[in-house]
């Protein structure tokens, strides 16, 4: 549990700084500090167990089917990294408190920092590699936020984008590699994978997995040729550079190299890929670093070089080199982080980081100077500092490495890199702090406040102590952490400043003396540098990005011109292609199912259908005609349902048909009655081909299905319809019982659609839309008798009958064709007839129900019926039934599902009426009609002459 807590604390704690910044910068920084401190203490509590060689675990199943579980484990290696991250985190937070100015939003900074910290601790403690990948991506994202923290600076934004693109693409490669690795090992748990080394290395997928994983590691740890993003990430505030880009995040890549060492290392491929990359990176980056004039750029390239060093050591694949690598991780974190902090202090104090404008600062900034000198000498590999220890081990390992049969190459290049490294370290000392004092500093140099120099001072203290007493300081930690890397096989090694006269010592002396010489002849070095081709990585990168952007812009322009018509054609064509791809490899022949005889009436109905379709295609520009044809087609479909044993569908289809046609007539009232002939012939031919292919494909597919036998799950529904659902109409029982939840969702959708229609129409009277409505002129002749007597009287007489039919259909629905949907539509049609006969306004004034409330009541009734089942301990929507004896009528079956069906009924009536009534309301307003006094335009009683009538009597 504590392991999970260590990871979770920074994430939860990230909420605090943005909230507490209102209480002041000190409170904010203190809160951040305390969060990190708590996590660090939680980790330290585990120290005795870890140092005793135990592996602590925390397991929680998350998505076990995907192999993604929240599994953490803590061994020596994880402990080392988690300790580094949290300990340096504490120093960085302190430093940042004084580094950030009042204008910088500190709450945001601290929150990002904690997010990053949590992600980083997550990486080093994850047991599940899928979980590890999540944290891996999180570090890329939080690093993006931190690099771009000063988002008013273009370099900040560009640097952040570059870092995200490079490490993010590496992350994608890493995901693929990890998935492969999990496939090979048969588990996504690191503890399992690490024990399967032999199996993994023998697998044919080993090389692809290795390449992909290295892609992720090398981008993250800025290895050649992906090293270019790191110097540009230096646009970040210095605490970020010190934390992410020297001590922690860039070490994630080499962390993983070390973590997967038992599973992947030791092969030829591993050696040549990893060691060579490391060697090349180390040498080239050290050379570049020497000539950088920006303090942070110098340190950035030196970081790349040192990361290359560790990569190379892990790449050798020998336990001895691995120990050296782990030791250098510790040492590099201490001296490099301190160096970045001193660079930040110089920048903060003098407002410049340009080495050419610095020099002679030792006397002016004695504290900073001392710290910087000690740290830089450690980086140069000068005894008695800790950098010397790991450099000796590195040179020792390099001297024994055999590269393509040559024992010299690696040793010589490593010495050369060490020489450059010594040279730039000396440059950091002599060109900045030693030398003549100047008079033209951009701002007077001074030592910073205690809070700002204390963190690097603590680190430098460690540099000295580790150098002097390596066995006491890091001996046990190194043993368990290096032991975890090598899988328990610890080689012979000794941590001491003096090993006697060894090849490594000679190489080391060569490097230091050579470095000093190179700095002394710095001008000649500069001239030498001019001889080499120096590609500008940023320009190349930006060029590549621009190429990609231009490509995608071209693709977008080619596909998207803003025309919905075209998008639809493309979408449908794509669907057709995918559909036809489904035919590949399958026969289109008819199946063996006995075909159904087609009587002449079916054939003639089919002919009507074909004719109607042809007519609507040819004459679709005459819109009223097209609408009539739609009605005809709907009728044919209903007849087909009726004939093919689906009476419920036939009833539904025919009643929906009525309301659909009324609705479209109401809309057509406002729309042009004819479409303009505007599609060019080419377009029409193209659409015709698309349409033909679509129809042909569907027809073949459907015919293939219809002529084959099948198995169904409906036998269960048929068998249980009466006994379980209490109804003989299986379709209705499925709707209200077996699949009641489905139906429940559907009536809600219907209700939402109706409410949306209401919202669209209710606001239609405003703005441009409202103006057009008010200016609208009817384009068709209006009947003089708009509300004819025959129709008024007829519909009025039919209303109770129609309502009765609705109730009847509703009540019998459970056992015979009918039910809530059909009854709702029938009742809606009965009401609509009143609107049609006497006009909207007249009917609306007499309508006593609110259709909004009706929809809501319907949904609630259905929902409550479902919930009622809970009180009997049944699942949602389970229904029951009983028989009641009603006087005069007799035995009546009452099923609880009727409550649900009632909800369906109300929702359907409400939705249909809400949609259509609002559409006709708009029509009335647009035509400026007054509310008629009576239901008819012509009142027959007034036509009779009063003078004549009595006489007739």
């Amino acid at each position, binding site marked *: 549990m504590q392991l999970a807590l260590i990871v979770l604390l920074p994430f939860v704690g990230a909420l605090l700084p943005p909230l507490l910044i209102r209480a002041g910068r000190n409170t904010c920084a203190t809160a951040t500090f305390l969060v990190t401190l708590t996590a660090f203490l939680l980790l330290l509590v585990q120290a005795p167990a870890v140092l005793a060689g135990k592996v602590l675990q925390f397991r929680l199943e998350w998505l076990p089917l995907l192999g993604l579980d929240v599994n953490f484990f803590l061994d020596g290696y994880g402990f080392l990294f988690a300790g580094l991250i949290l300990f340096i985190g504490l120093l960085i937070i302190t430093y940042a408190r004084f580094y950030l100015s009042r204008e910088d939003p500190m709450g945001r900074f601290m929150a990002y920092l904690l997010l990053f910290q949590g992600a980083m601790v997550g990486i080093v403690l994850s047991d599940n590699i899928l979980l590890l990948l999540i944290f891996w991506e999180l570090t890329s994202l939080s690093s993006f936020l931190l690099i771009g923290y000063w988002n008013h600076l273009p370099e900040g934004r560009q640097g952040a984008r570059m870092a995200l693109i490079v490490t993010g693409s590496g992350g994608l490669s890493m995901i693929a590699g990890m998935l492969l690795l999990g496939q090979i090992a048969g588990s996504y748990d690191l503890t399992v994978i690490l024990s399967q080394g032999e199996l993994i290395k023998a697998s044919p997928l080993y090389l692809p997995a290795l390449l992909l994983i290295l892609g992720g590691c090398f981008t993250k740890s800025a290895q050649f040729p992906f090293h270019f993003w790191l110097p540009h990430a230096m646009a970040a505030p210095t605490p970020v550079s010190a934390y992410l880009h020297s001590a922690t995040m860039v070490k994630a890549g080499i962390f993983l190299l070390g973590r997967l060492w038992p599973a992947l290392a030791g092969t030829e491929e591993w050696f040549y890929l990893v060691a060579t990359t490391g060697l090349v990176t180390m040498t080239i980056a050290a050379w570049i670093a020497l000539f950088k004039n920006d303090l942070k750029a110098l340190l950035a390239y030196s970081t790349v070089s040192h990361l290359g060093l560790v990569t190379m050591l892990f790449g050798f694949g020998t336990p001895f080199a691995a120990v050296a690598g782990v030791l250098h991780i510790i040492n590099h974190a201490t001296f490099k982080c301190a160096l970045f902090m001193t660079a930040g202090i110089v920048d903060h104090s003098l407002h410049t980081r340009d080495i050419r404008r610095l020099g002679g600062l030792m006397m002016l900034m004695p504290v900073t100077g001392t710290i910087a000198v000690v740290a830089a000498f450690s980086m140069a590999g000068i005894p008695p500092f800790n950098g010397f220890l790991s450099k000796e081990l590195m040179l020792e390992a390099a001297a024994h490495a055999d590269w393509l049969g040559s024992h010299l190459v690696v040793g010589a290049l490593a010495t050369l890199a060490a020489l450059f490294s010594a040279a730039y370290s000396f440059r950091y000392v002599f060109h900045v702090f030693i030398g003549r004092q100047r008079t033209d500093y951009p701002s007077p140099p001074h030592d910073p406040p205690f809070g700002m120099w204390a963190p690097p001072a603590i680190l430098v203290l460690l540099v000295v102590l580790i150098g002097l007493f390596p066995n006491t300081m890091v001996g046990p930690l190194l043993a368990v952490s290096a032991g975890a890397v090598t899988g328990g096989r610890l080689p012979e090694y000794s941590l001491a400043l003096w090993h006697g006269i060894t090849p490594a010592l000679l190489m080391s002396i060569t490097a230091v003396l050579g470095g000093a010489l190179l700095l002394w002849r710095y001008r000649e070095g500069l001239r030498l540098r001019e001889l080499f081709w120096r590609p500008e990585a940023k320009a190349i990168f930006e060029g590549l990005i621009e190429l990609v952007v231009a490509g995608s812009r071209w693709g977008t322009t080619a596909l998207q011109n803003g025309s919905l*018509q075209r998008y639809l054609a493309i979408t449908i064509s794509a669907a057709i292609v995918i559909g036809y791809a489904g035919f590949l490899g399958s026969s289109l022949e008819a199946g063996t199912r006995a075909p*159904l005889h087609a009587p002449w009436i079916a054939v003639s109905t*089919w002919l009507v259908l074909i004719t109607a379709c042809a007519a609507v295609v040819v004459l679709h520009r005459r819109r009223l005609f097209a609408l009539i044809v739609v009605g005809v087609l709907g009728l044919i479909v209903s007849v*087909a349902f009726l004939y*093919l044993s689906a009476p419920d569908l036939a009833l539904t289809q025919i009643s929906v048909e009525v309301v659909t046609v009324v609705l479209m007539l109401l809309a057509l009232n406002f*729309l042009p009655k004819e479409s303009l002939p505007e599609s060019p012939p080419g377009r029409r031919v193209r659409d015709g081909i698309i*349409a033909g292919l679509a*129809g042909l494909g569907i027809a073949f597919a459907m015919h293939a299905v219809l002529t084959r036998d099948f198995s169904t799950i409906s036998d269960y529904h048929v068998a249980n319809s009466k006994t379980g659902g209490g109804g003989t109409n299986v379709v209705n029982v499925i709707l209200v019982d077996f699949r009641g939840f489905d139906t429940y969702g559907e009536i809600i959708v*219907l209700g939402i659609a109706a409410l949306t229609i209401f919202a669209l129409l209710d606001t239609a009277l405003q703005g441009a839309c409202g103006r057009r409505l008010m200016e609208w002129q009817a384009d068709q002749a209006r009947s003089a008798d708009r509300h004819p007597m025959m129709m008024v009287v007829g519909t009025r007489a039919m209303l109770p009958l129609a309502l009765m039919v609705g109730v009847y259909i509703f009540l019998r629905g459970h056992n015979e064709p009918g039910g809530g949907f059909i009854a709702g539509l029938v009742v809606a049609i009965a009401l609509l007839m009143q609107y049609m006969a006497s006009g909207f306004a007249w009917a609306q004034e007499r309508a006593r129900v609110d259709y909004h409330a009706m929809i809501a009541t319907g949904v609630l009734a259905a929902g409550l019926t479902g919930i009622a089942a809970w009180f009997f301990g049944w699942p949602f929507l389970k229904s029951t039934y009983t028989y009641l004896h009603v006087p005069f009528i007799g035995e009546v079956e009452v099923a609880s599902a009727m409550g649900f069906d009632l909800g369906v009924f109300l929702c359907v009536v409400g939705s249909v009426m809400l949609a259509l009534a609002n559409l006709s309301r708009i029509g009335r307003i647009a035509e400026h009609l007054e509310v008629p006094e009576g239901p008819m335009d012509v009142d027959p009683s007034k036509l009779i002459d009063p003078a004549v009538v009595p006489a007739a009597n």
Partner: protein
Amino acid sequence: MELLVSSGVGVLVAAGVYLVLRARTFPVIVGLALLSYAVNLLIFGMGRLVIDRPPILSLHLDTYTDPLPQALVLTAIVISFGMTALIVVIILRSFLETGSDHVDGDETGRLTEPGEGGGR
């Protein structure tokens, strides 16, 4: 019969797709209506074609046609009505807002330069 139904559905689909691809909004609605007929028949057809065996339990029948596709199609019919109604109102509103019944909301057919975003 199978041939009649499947070819009928095919013709409905073809006519529907052709109309959906027209430039004016009204034919698009008509096309959508035809496509809903076709799709409903297609789903219904997954229960195969059977006559005189409605899924109403009775003493005179011992086999019934598959009720499940029917239940699915029944709600689909009502939902497609809701969808048609919504689209009808949307195109009506867009016609009233823009004064054009072109599907692109514009007579030219080309709205905006790519990259400006479809703010219309």
